[in-house]
């Protein structure tokens, strides 16, 4: 085996590591000498966009992250909020876009594995998974294969680990043809006095490696493809990792068992850039140094170099700092779960990451230079031009337009997807997929968590600021619609190339909007992830800042669902419908246009209407509720009718044209159903509170009809809604 550290660092090698000249000069000055090959590799991953957030950090700092119930905001593996009674919800969302495009099954599976580790690292038992997916247009030759692989991968991992996948969102749009988005979110529960952080402490304390062995998986960079440092150069090393959910399950149980003792000082999962970024992060947070003996790293393959061990992204591994003398006890736990356990180093007071291998020092870098000296760019940006309001035509055939929307790719039932996910394991899922938010009981209590992921990329593209607001507001509304109080969000910011000013403008605009909504709704950001460079051949995806919201319900028996429950109930529309068809789904899908300003998000009205609706549910006045979003009023009515297995007879009185009333995507609106007396009370209460309200119809029958102009048999509507996805997926693979 060649000693990789003898390789001379040339400008080409620097470039292959994704570092520019100026960045390389910074490294040399930080170290006071030229880095060797291993050190260069470590700098390159630590300073990558993914680890250093160099293009986004400046703007992320402006987001609101605090509230009295926030225990831990961004900066740790996941965010932590107080949900009362000494309990905390811990959650985060992360992207696995590029790997999922290359190998949809394993890419999506390892995405789920990674986000689970972020959450149980902090001491939480994961209780729910969500997934936000964007695929190319249905007719694109790759789409079907990607949908099928991604869904199978998410299910394959989550089902095996035994954490229910309770919801998500799925969109199809041409802008994702060459770059799909797979964002996964995990929510976990812990006791507030049993939360674990990653800051290392205590000079001399052991650094311990647990989990799977290290292989040459996912090693960064084109450098590896040349494979000149090892014997087995006959095949190009795959950069795709294979997930092992069985090991993950064991790792969860073993970590939680050890966490119940007092042995752990700090713990961190090995995510992107594996051993390197986990040790650097732990050392940096704790203001200490790490000395690692790489000979002790459990290895899956022969002759691994220090470079490979440091950069491997093998899955299902964790790094811990233990209290001295607890090694044997900890080892016994990991052995019981048949997992590797190795003491691979100790904490030093040098402030350096020192790597030893075969008795020699093969790397020696100042920790703070790896973190604090990382470049931060304030990239130039231009805001997206504002659009004027659009005049949006009526459809040729109203009934057909409704059927096409409800039975089309973006509003059809996602049952084909979520029936492949075990959404009930753990026995606490009381609102399964298909509603506004998933609801999972806090085990053994009356409380429940409500979770929703949302973003409307059409709006973010048309007006990033409104789109950013709307994404946050929609999760808030979905959580409200089941009767829970929204508390905080995580996010996954998927954008194109930040070096293009118009993309950076989308990013900045969306973040401004998100920040405004978080502040207005008391709904801070506690964790998140940024995924940039989502583009192929120079064409970027639509800006897609996916938001994952979490709320709490005190009494889970009061929960509302979208299904109409009894015939003869009054249907009440809360909130004002305006002429807002710009950038609507109707405009895009039925008319094939994308023009005009998207709906305006008035955050005060959002809050007022939402608080009103939540109170109705909490008071027990209402148990049927649905918010209005894509597709407008008619889409919400259809969802409620299909879900309840009964029709509705609706009469709209308005100055707006009928198609506007039906398809407008005005914000801050909800539909509720209740018996006639209750509905009348609700109407009065809303009026008194200055909230636009109207009793618009009655549940029941086997037809969905509006003003006699829309009239569709429930059987036909249901078949269209349930049929699209399975029919699409059943079609021949190209």
């Amino acid at each position, binding site marked *: 085996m060649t000693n990789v550290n003898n390789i001379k660092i040339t400008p080409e090698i620097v470039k292959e590591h994704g570092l520019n000249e100026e960045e390389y000069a910074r490294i040399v000055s930080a170290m006071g000498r030229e880095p060797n090959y291993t050190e260069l590799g470590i700098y390159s991953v630590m300073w990558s966009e993914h680890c250093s957030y160099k293009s986004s950090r400046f703007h992320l700092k402006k987001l609101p992250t605090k509230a009295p119930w926030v225990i831990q905001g961004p900066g740790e593996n996941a965010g932590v909020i107080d949900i009362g009674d000494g309990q905390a919800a811990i959650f985060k969302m992360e992207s696995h876009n590029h790997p999922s495009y290359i190998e949809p099954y394993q890419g999506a599976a390892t995405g789920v594995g990674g986000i689970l580790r972020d959450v149980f690292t902090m001491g939480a038992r994961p209780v729910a998974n969500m997934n936000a997916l964007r695929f190319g247009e249905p007719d694109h030759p790759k789409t079907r294969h990607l949908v099928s692989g991604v869904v*199978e991968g998410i*299910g*394959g991992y989550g*089902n*095996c*680990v*035994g954490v229910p996948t309770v919801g998500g969102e799925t969109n199809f749009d041409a802008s994702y043809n060459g770059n799909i988005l797979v964002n996964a979110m995990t929510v976990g529960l812990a006791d507030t006095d049993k939360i674990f952080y990653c800051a290392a402490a205590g000079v001399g304390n052991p650094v311990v490696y647990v989990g799977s062995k290290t292989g040459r998986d996912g090693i960064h960079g084109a450098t590896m493809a040349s494979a000149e440092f090892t014997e087995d150069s006959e095949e190009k090393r795959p950069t795709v990792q294979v997930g*092992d*959910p*069985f*090991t993950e*399950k*064991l790792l969860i149980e073993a970590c939680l068992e050890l966490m119940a003792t007092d042995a752990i000082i700090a713990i961190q999962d090995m995510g992107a850039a594996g051993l390197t970024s986990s040790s650097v992060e732990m050392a940096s947070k704790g203001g200490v140094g790490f000395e690692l003996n790489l000979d002790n790293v459990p290895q899956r393959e022969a002759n691994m170099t220090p470079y490979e061990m440091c950069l491997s992204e093998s899955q299902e591994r964790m790094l811990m700092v233990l209290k001295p003398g607890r090694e044997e006890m900890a080892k016994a736990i990991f052995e*019981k*779960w*048949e997992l590797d356990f190795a003491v691979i180093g100790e904490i030093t007071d040098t402030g350096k990451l020192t790597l030893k291998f075969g008795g020699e020092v093969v790397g020696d870098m100042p920790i703070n230079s790896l973190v604090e000296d990382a470049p931060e760019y304030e990239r130039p940006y231009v805001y997206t031009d504002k659009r004027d309001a659009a005049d949006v035509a009526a459809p040729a055939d109203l009934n057909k337009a409704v059927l096409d929307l409800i039975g089309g790719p973006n509003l059809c039932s996602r049952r084909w997807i*979520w*029936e*492949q*996910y*075990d*959404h*009930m*394991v*753990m*026995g606490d*899922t*009381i609102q399964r997929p298909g509603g506004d938010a998933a609801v999972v*009981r806090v085990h053994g209590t009356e409380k429940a968590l409500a979770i929703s992921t949302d973003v409307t990329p059409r709006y973010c593209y048309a007006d990033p600021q409104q789109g950013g607001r709307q994404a946050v507001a929609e999760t808030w509304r979905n959580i409200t619609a089941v009767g829970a109080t929204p508390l905080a969000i995580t996010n996954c910011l998927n954008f194109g190339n930040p070096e293009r000013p118009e993309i950076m403008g989308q990013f900045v605009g969306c973040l401004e909007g998100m920040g405004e909504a978080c502040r207005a709704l008391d709904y801070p950001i506690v964790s998140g992830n940024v995924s940039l460079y989502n583009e192929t051949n120079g064409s970027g995806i639509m800006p897609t800042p996916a938001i994952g919201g979490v709320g709490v319900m005190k009494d*889970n*028996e009061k929960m509302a669902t979208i299904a109409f429950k009894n015939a003869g109930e009054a249907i009440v529309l809360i909130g004002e419908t305006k002429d807002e068809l710009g950038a609507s789904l109707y405009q895009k899908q039925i008319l094939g246009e994308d023009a005009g300003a998207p709906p305006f998000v008035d955050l005060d009205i959002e809050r007022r209407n939402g608080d009103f609706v939540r109170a109705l549910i909490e008071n027990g006045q209402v148990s049927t509720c649905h918010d209005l979003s894509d597709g407008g009023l008619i889409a919400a009515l259809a969802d409620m009718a299909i879900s309840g297995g009964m029709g509705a007879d609706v009469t709209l009185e308005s100055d707006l044209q009928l198609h506007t009333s039906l398809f407008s995507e005005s914000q801050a609106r909800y539909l509720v159903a209740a018996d006639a007396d209750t509905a009348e009370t609700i109407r009065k209460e809303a009026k008194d509170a200055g909230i636009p309200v109207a009793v618009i119809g009655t549940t029941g029958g086997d037809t969905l009809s509006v003003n006699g102009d829309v009239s569709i048999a429930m059987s036909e509507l249901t078949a269209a809604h349930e049929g699209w996805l399975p029919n699409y997926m059943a079609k021949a693979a190209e």
Partner: protein
Amino acid sequence: MKSAVIVFPGSNCDRDMAVALEKITGQKPLMVWHQDYDFDKVDFIALPGGFSYGDYLRCGAMSARSHIMKEVIKRAEDGVPTFGVCNGFQILTETGLLPGALMRNANLHFVCKDVKLKVENTDSLFTNGYDEGAEITIPVAHHDGNYFADADTLDRLEGEGQVAFRYADDINGAQRRIAGVMNAKGNVLGMMPHPERMIEPALGGSDGRVMFESVMNRLG
């Protein structure tokens, strides 16, 4: 009724089973880690669902060869009521305590949803609480629930009343839509649907509860 839940590496419905047993029997079950095969005497042994050993190689294959299963087989042969759900059912067929095998679902997809079941035998240890001809709703969540046995075995199972539950609709390709079978003695039941997930209205219904209550009735 004192019960035990056997836990293998990768079991993931063990807690669900324990919660259901405690809610229904009023007694906390013994959680038995697969290496602790010398466990106390119990009235009821449950093999939970999940993915023991990741379902690698074949579902239930590795658990079936574990030391603790030797003990479970011995007790089952001595007449202790023994119940396997999903992965537990797969383990029971892999050990030979129940006939047949569970293959990949015919459409190759994992399926998680409520299904309608016909209770085929309402006299048994496990099903005496159901009304004759009852149709019940219980969720499934599996990738390998496609029950297979040769025609003679199937005839025998049906003839001897060993088919406990049958799917109302074909959901996974199972021969004769069989969802759950018992051994000849009637003290071992394996089924793919998860009764422990249907024990209270908040979860969508209580049809699963009756299965556990049936055993309690018999054991007195």
